């Protein structure tokens, strides 16, 4: 045999074949393995293919065994179970509609029954009203005369209402073999001796649960979902929920959807004449036909660490993501920003701020959520009882910033170096001269006091700053503000000096707030001279360290070559 050792590290078919050919080629063995038409070569092909097959199998086996490398949803489902995280096979597209009762009697939206129709590309889609999960408020679905409220509708391809299920009473569980159902719409009821009772979904066990708690647990399975009650018969320890008796029947209701197919539906109609849809032109979004594995990999470990409590920033981030109210891209941190008030411009303790950017809005281009959006109030309501004592949970409208790269390489470096992108520090590894931060969309909420009508301070990019010890002018970095003065003339002010007395911006009416850190972007605007801020730009130069943090949400984009 050949003295050439086989290279076990080569897993490409051609490499394997070459290794085998090299191994078989020796003076004692004159087989024509080198010629593709030969029978010996065909045998080598067979061996190579077999080797490749097992190499691939081993590789897949190892990859799918670990959370970081798993690619198949089935693997992630299994890996997520010990972390207490439920993966949805499919989520329905949703639309939050503002309804007004123009009649004189209270209107009630019947869960799983009240439906509206929307249109997408000439095809009609049905959307169904469903109560939020675990909602026990009897007035949630009511609309009193002249009242205007937001209601969430789920795109539905079919609806199951009060369907009895076959329960495994010994193990206190039952299966729902339907991957199309949206778990957010699942309602579990048990027909107990004194009537039909709603069961609440819980995600983890805690000391407040007892053998009388009406709760259920949901787990993703290969073919759908498995629902557990907390009192299996043959087990040690205490029950963590009420068990279902054999004389009791379990009923479930849920909505099955078309997944991402329902996204983009608009022109909603179909309610009675006395209930008007204020925002019928809303475009539905947030539906997906299969889970995004990147989002699962992000959320599941954090969900485990958080344990359902809201303590750290990650707890809040995962909590908001798990509500399913915000559609995110593959990196949810680009859409959900949570930070403490101590790191915000206000620098007062005791507040937890959150900012949201929904990628499904604006026809898929994404848009930040204004404070008036119902999702904001819904999240605040959901978290009201879980926020730590002594803290308040407030929404801060995102300040959207376009991060523009003028060549392709920086955006890759940007993404590679900084997991959170816009919430990190550029180092000299990244040529800051190729990056431009720019905003032209400045929400009124972002300003201190009542800018611009009564002057005050405009709090722009409170965490964008250069850390150069020298002047901006000396560093080459520029920090400019574009605004219009009272005569509607467009002007550009440039921050040019860092010394405490001369810090400021050229141009009438704009100076840097020297009570704040010199090199942060906090401007004082003279309302008598400045009428409107049109945009603010920061150009970094090589070596400039730029921090963009917290409430600023942006999507990097490339312009030019």
């Amino acid at each position: 045999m050949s003295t050439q050792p086989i290279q076990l590290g080569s897993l490409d078919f051609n490499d394997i074949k070459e290794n085998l050919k090299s191994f078989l080629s020796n003076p004692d063995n004159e087989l024509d393995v080198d010629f593709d038409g030969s029978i010996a070569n065909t045998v080598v092909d067979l061996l190579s293919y077999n080797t490749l097959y097992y190499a691939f199998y081993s590789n897949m086996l190892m990859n799918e065994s670990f959370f970081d490398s798993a690619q198949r949803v089935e693997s992630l489902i299994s890996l997520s179970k010990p972390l207490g995280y439920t993966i949805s096979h499919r989520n329905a597209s949703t639309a939050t509609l503002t309804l007004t009762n123009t009649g004189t009697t209270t209107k009630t939206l019947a869960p799983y029954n009240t439906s509206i129709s929307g249109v997408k590309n000439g095809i009609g889609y049905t959307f169904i009203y469903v109560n939020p999960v675990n909602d026990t408020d009897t007035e949630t679905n009511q609309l009193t005369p002249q009242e205007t409220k937001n209601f969430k509708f789920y795109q539905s391809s079919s609806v199951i209402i009060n369907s009895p299920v076959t329960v495994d009473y010994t193990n206190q569980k039952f299966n729902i073999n339907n991957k199309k159902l949206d778990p957010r719409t699942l309602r579990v009821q048990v027909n107990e001796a004194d009537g039909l009772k709603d069961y609440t979904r819980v995600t983890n066990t805690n000391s407040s649960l007892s053998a009388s708690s009406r709760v259920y647990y949901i787990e993703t399975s290969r073919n759908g979902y498995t629902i557990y009650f907390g009192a299996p018969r043959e087990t040690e320890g205490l029950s963590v929920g009420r068990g279902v008796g054999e004389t009791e029947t379990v009923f479930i209701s849920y909505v099955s959807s078309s997944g991402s197919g329902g996204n983009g539906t608009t022109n909603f109609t179909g309610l009675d004449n006395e209930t008007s849809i204020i925002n019928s032109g809303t475009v539905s979004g947030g539906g997906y036909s299969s889970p995004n594995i990147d989002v699962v990999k992000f959320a599941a470990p954090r969900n485990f660490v958080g344990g359902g409590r809201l303590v750290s920033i990650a707890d809040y981030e995962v909590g908001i993501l798990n509500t399913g109210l915000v559609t995110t891209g593959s990196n949810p941190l680009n859409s959900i920003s949570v930070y403490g008030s101590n790191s915000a411009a206000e620098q007062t303790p005791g507040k937890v701020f959150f900012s949201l950017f929904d990628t499904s809005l604006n026809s898929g281009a994404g848009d930040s959520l204004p404070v008036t959006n119902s999702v904001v109030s819904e999240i605040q309501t959901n978290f009201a009882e879980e926020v730590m004592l002594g803290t308040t949970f407030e929404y801060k409208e995102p300040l959207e910033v376009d991060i523009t790269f003028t060549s392709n390489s920086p955006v890759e470096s940007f993404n590679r170096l900084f997991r959170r992108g816009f919430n990190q520090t550029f180092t000299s590894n990244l040529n800051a001269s190729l990056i431009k931060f720019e905003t032209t969309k400045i929400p009124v909420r972002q300003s201190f006091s009542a800018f611009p009508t009564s002057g005050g301070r405009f709090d722009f990019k409170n965490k964008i700053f250069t850390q150069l010890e020298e002047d901006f002018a000396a560093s080459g970095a520029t920090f400019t503000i574009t605004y219009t003065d009272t005569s509607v003339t467009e002007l550009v002010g440039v921050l040019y000096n860092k010394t405490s007395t001369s810090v400021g911006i050229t141009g009438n009416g704009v100076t840097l707030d020297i009570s704040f850190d010199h090199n942060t972007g906090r401007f004082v605007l003279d309302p008598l001279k400045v009428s409107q801020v049109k945009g603010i730009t920061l150009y970094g130069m090589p070596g400039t360290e730029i921090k963009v943090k917290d409430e600023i949400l942006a999507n990097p984009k490339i312009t030019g070559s």
Partner: protein
Amino acid sequence: MAKATDFNFKFETNTFTRDVSISKDTRAINQSITNILLTRKNEKPFTPGFGVGLESMYYKMINMNMSDFVFLVEDARININRYEPRVSFSDMEILNQDTIQDDGNVQLLVTYTLKSSKNNKIDNVKIVIQEN
């Protein structure tokens, strides 16, 4: 010519050595050419262009016009020259052009030149394709 050694196409046992039968020299090369001509495209893993696929062309060949046959011959030439570098393809012709339908088979004669032989020896291999 240089020695050519290959397994026998049928993997028969050599009764004397009790080992797999070996084909040598011209027989080994003829086996290789036959293998190339009868292998269908995409049949060989990771070598999709390998083969001419004559085996599946019985019905096509009994009514084949000249231009199509020229393309077939060209495909055979490319494949043989690429995958059997010990020979140089010369020609391929149908031996029973007029009696294909009566014979129930297509008899092909592939002529080639052995590159390593003295005086560039010309050899050939006959392939019979039957209805399958």
